[in-house]
């Protein structure tokens, strides 16, 4: 995770008080296909100006949920409201929402200009206005020179821009993006991420994006909803999801984490004490909801939060073990330490700290420790 560069600057989340009516409100929406429940009683609020990300693996329901917002699928249960107005039964062509498709879906028989003008023509706008808005949209995406070309004469990246222009020119309240970067190779993808975020800030439209790539979501979104089996497992800012996951699934989804199985000894004032056989000691960590004693939990610590020293330090959460391997990754040292219990712990140390600990090699005994504030207690 640390090798990933800092993402582009994101606007902070709008406080709920400033927008009493959320731009998009989904209430207990469900969608079934035959025997399969794709979306299971999902509730979600999305606010104006957010770059919202629906994240999950395949089959998680994120694409179905996106299509339900677009109106391409109608929910079997639940409500969807845009700016307070109920659009649950409204077909796609009646919603103030536009979508950018994964395949771009440019009309092959129409020129770039006519593609972009399509939606405005359906609105019945006067010709002069259409021409002007189309020109502006294309120029904003640097595609002004290609207006007469047909889609098959464009490269993949150019087609994507046209698809954007086509979706944006109608000034929708929400722009939906279905895995927009999936078709690009790694190098182009990073640049496209920057451009996408910059574009959103420029037009000010709320973006809702679907992706399976957690790095992408972390780097671009102001808020993320992680989905699994049709339900939202956790929704929040990237920081919240990374530092304070509510379950192992969330913890595992974003980067690597160390998980220590154990049972609750006691919970007090936000901090829980967990008896862990794997760790061989009592670990302390932050908890979300109060848990009863003896509850089976896991304590999560990110590798970059783990400190290492030769001698036993004066600290909480101290573990002792032998170094199994220590790899130098350029900007950090990745150390695998095997505890007496047999469990392997991953620690990522800056070169400075590694040096201060005496640059231990494989087989040497070391001590691992971290502040309790850096650990989280996860229920399941």
């Amino acid at each position, binding site marked *: 995770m640390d090798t990933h560069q800092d993402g582009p600057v994101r606007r902070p989340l709008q406080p709920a008080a400033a927008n009493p009516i959320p731009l998009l409100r989904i209430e207990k929406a469900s969608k079934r296909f035959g025997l399969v429940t794709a979306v299971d009683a999902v509730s979600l609020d999305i606010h104006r100006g957010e770059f919202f990300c629906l994240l999950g693996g395949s089959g998680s329901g994120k694409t179905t949920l996106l299509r339900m917002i677009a109106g391409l699928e*109608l929910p079997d249960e639940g409500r969807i409201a845009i700016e307070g107005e109920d659009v649950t039964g409204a077909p796609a*062509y009646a919603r103030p929402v536009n979508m950018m498709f994964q395949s771009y879906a440019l009309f092959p028989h129409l020129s770039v200009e006519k593609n972009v003008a399509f939606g405005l023509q359906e609105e019945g706008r006067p010709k002069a206005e259409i021409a002007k808005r189309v020109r502006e949209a294309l120029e904003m995406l640097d595609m002004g020179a290609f207006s007469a070309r047909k889609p098959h004469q464009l490269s993949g990246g150019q087609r994507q821009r046209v698809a954007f222009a086509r979706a944006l020119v109608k000034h929708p309240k929400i722009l939906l993006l279905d895995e927009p970067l999936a078709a690009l190779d790694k190098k182009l993808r990073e640049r496209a991420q920057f451009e996408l975020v910059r574009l959103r800030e420029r037009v000010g439209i709320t973006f809702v994006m679907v992706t399976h790539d957690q790095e992408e979501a972390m780097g671009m979104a102001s808020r993320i909803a992680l989905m699994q089996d049709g339900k939202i497992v956790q929704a929040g800012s990237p920081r919240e999801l990374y530092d304070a996951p509510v379950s192992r699934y969330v913890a595992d989804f974003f980067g690597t984490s160390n998980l220590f199985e154990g049972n609750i000894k006691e919970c007090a004032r936000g901090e829980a004490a967990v008896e862990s056989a794997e760790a061989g000691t009592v670990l302390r960590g932050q908890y979300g909801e109060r848990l009863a004693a003896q509850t089976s939990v896991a304590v999560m610590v990110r590798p970059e939060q783990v400190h290492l020293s030769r001698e036993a330090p004066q600290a909480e959460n101290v573990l002792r073990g032998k170094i199994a391997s220590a790899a130098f990754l350029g900007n950090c040292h990745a150390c695998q330490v095997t505890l007496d219990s047999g469990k392997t712990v991953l620690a990522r140390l800056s070169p400075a700290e590694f040096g201060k600990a005496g640059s231990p090699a494989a087989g040497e005994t070391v001590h691992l420790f971290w502040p309790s504030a850096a650990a989280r207690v996860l229920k399941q």
Partner: protein
Amino acid sequence: MSGRPGHSCSGVFVAGVPLVWLLLFVLLPLLIVFAISLAETRTGSPPYTPLFTWEAGFLPRIHVQARNYALLLSDRLYIDAFLSSLRIAATSSFIALLIAYPMAYAIARARESVRTPLLMLVILPFWTSFLIRVYAWTGILNSNGFINNVLLDFGLIKAPLPLLHTEFAVHLGIVYSYLPFMVLPIFAVLEKLDWTYLEAAADLGARPLKAFLRVTLPLSLPGIFAGVLLVFIPALGEFIVPELLGGPDTLMVGRVLWTEFFSNRDWPLASALAIGLLVLVLVPAIVFFRLMRKEEAA
């Protein structure tokens, strides 16, 4: 219907019109043929006895009899017609396969740029009139037709060969008319073939002929089956080819049906023959559709 927006009313209309047409012009006629096959022939119009008569009371009396079918199954003429139809269709399909396979193979192996023109040349005859293509052979197989003229001129024969109005001519006509239908499916399969299979076979020591028999041929079987069925099924009920190129003793069901209907005015018997032909065609047709389903799934 699970929510595809705006598709409910127009959907009924869109499906409705072709459905009504099909029920009226495909299903109903077949039922009528079956019904008439159970009637008796008579002079007058229409030339068959009515199936329902209302004599006394509310319910009609039904007059059906299976005499026509009994005739089909007992009379030598009809049994021979069915059998020879099967025989001629089978041998024609086989001959067509022998000619079509190398053609399809050659086109599939050709350079990308020439493949489409080559295919087009195969398909082009299909678009010219079927009738005319069969007719063309009469001018060739005639006793003073092209072949006989050439053979006579070169002194190879003394008297003209009776080529026309024979079973040989019928086979020729069927193979000729349906050849494109055999070439196309085989080509379609061969084109998609991964030729590296052959390279692997050669690498493992197989000589070209062996590689063909053990690799190419088995892999192209779906195309062969499809092609054979596409020739066999229409050939079973073929009428024009046996009528124009066949002799008086060339019996094919289509022709017998025509004679019963137009010459003998025996509509019920013709209907029974039609049902018999339907049954004959049904078995290979079902096999063909199963094959298509498997192809689609693959």
